[in-house]
């Protein structure tokens, strides 16, 4: 093969490269497929550094009562993590009823000057923090009706994922394992089934412990991963944030590249023909 022919075939190979489309949520595109939390960090500064290292453009926050009597000059989370620079994703963590979740979202919308993007979670059990899917569905329907853009945390039940999508949620976020457990993607089969049916972005929310867990989610074809504890509770959150950024990117590329088939037995990589022994 001549050099020019080689370069033609190289060009052909390059042109076959799949160019990834960025993640789109509520009409806004994001280059990063990683969403991180802001809980459990030692301080705002550690959180901000992790956020920068992770490359994430979306960060979750919780809505809670102001501590009365604290110094009003003290910076708040939103003074450190700017809503102008990052997309703030208020959550309904700690809510056990649809009513509380809807109320929390309404407060968040007022707090963030009309911001409509929310992470809905309605919990069902304090020990496992498993979602209460019936209350979640009720809250999702109400919030969508009220004009919210709802990203919904749910179980890894493929049928529930369809119901939530039908309710108008713009992203469905099944758990990989219980919140804060770091146990990884416990049921990849269910995540695959959810992905097969989905017409909205599927983002694994909860369960990731290390970078390989995030890669597995992305290799399955998920549109993104949301994580908090895996980064915040790492000995070095900034370094773990950087690891997660790479894991999300490599997992996504591996998914787009298309994996080789699984085989039970070996398949030699070196040809048998031409062996001289």
């Amino acid at each position, binding site marked *: 093969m001549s050099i020019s022919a080689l370069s033609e075939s190289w060009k052909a190979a390059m042109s076959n490269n799949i160019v990834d489309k960025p993640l789109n949520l509520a009409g806004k595109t994001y280059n990063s497929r990683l969403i991180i939390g802001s809980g459990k960090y030692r301080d705002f500064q550690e959180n901000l550094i992790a956020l920068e290292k992770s490359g994430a453009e979306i960060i979750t*926050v919780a*809505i*809670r009562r102001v501590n*009365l009597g604290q110094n009003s000059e003290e910076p708040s989370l939103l003074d450190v993590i700017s809503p102008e620079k990052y997309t703030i994703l208020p959550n309904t*963590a700690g809510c056990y009823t649809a009513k509380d979740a809807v109320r929390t979202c*309404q407060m968040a919308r007022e*707090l963030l000057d009309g911001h409509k993007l929310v992470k809905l979670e309605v919990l069902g059990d304090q020990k496992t923090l498993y979602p209460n899917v019936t209350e979640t569905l009720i809250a999702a329907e109400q919030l969508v009706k009220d004009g919210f853009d709802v990203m919904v945390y749910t179980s890894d039940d493929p049928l529930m994922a369809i119901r939530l999508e039908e309710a108008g949620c713009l992203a469905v976020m099944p758990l990989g394992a219980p919140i804060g457990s770091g146990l990884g993607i416990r049921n990849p089969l269910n995540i695959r089934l959810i992905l097969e049916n989905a017409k909205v972005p599927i983002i694994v929310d909860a369960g990731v412990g290390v970078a390989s867990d995030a890669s597995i989610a992305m290799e399955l074809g998920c549109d993104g991963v949301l994580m908090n504890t895996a980064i915040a509770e790492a000995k070095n959150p900034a370094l773990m944030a950087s690891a997660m950024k790479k894991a999300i990117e490599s997992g996504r590329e591996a998914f787009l590249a298309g994996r080789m088939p699984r085989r039970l037995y070996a398949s030699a990589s070196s040809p048998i023909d031409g062996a001289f022994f």
Partner: protein
Amino acid sequence: MHVTVNGNSHELDNNINLYQLLEQLKVGKGRVAIELNGKIVPKSQFCQHQLSNGDTIEIVQAIGGG
């Protein structure tokens, strides 16, 4: 008069509005949302809401969470 703010009882002078309450409680007004008796009060209307005896007020902010 008595009002309940974030679950705690507060004794206030009469004729005080939400804006003045935030000043008294030393709450920064930039990044909070307020519910007065279960109804959200837009930031722009803090001055217009006179408090009454027995009112329940929730003042929330964004904090770290996942």
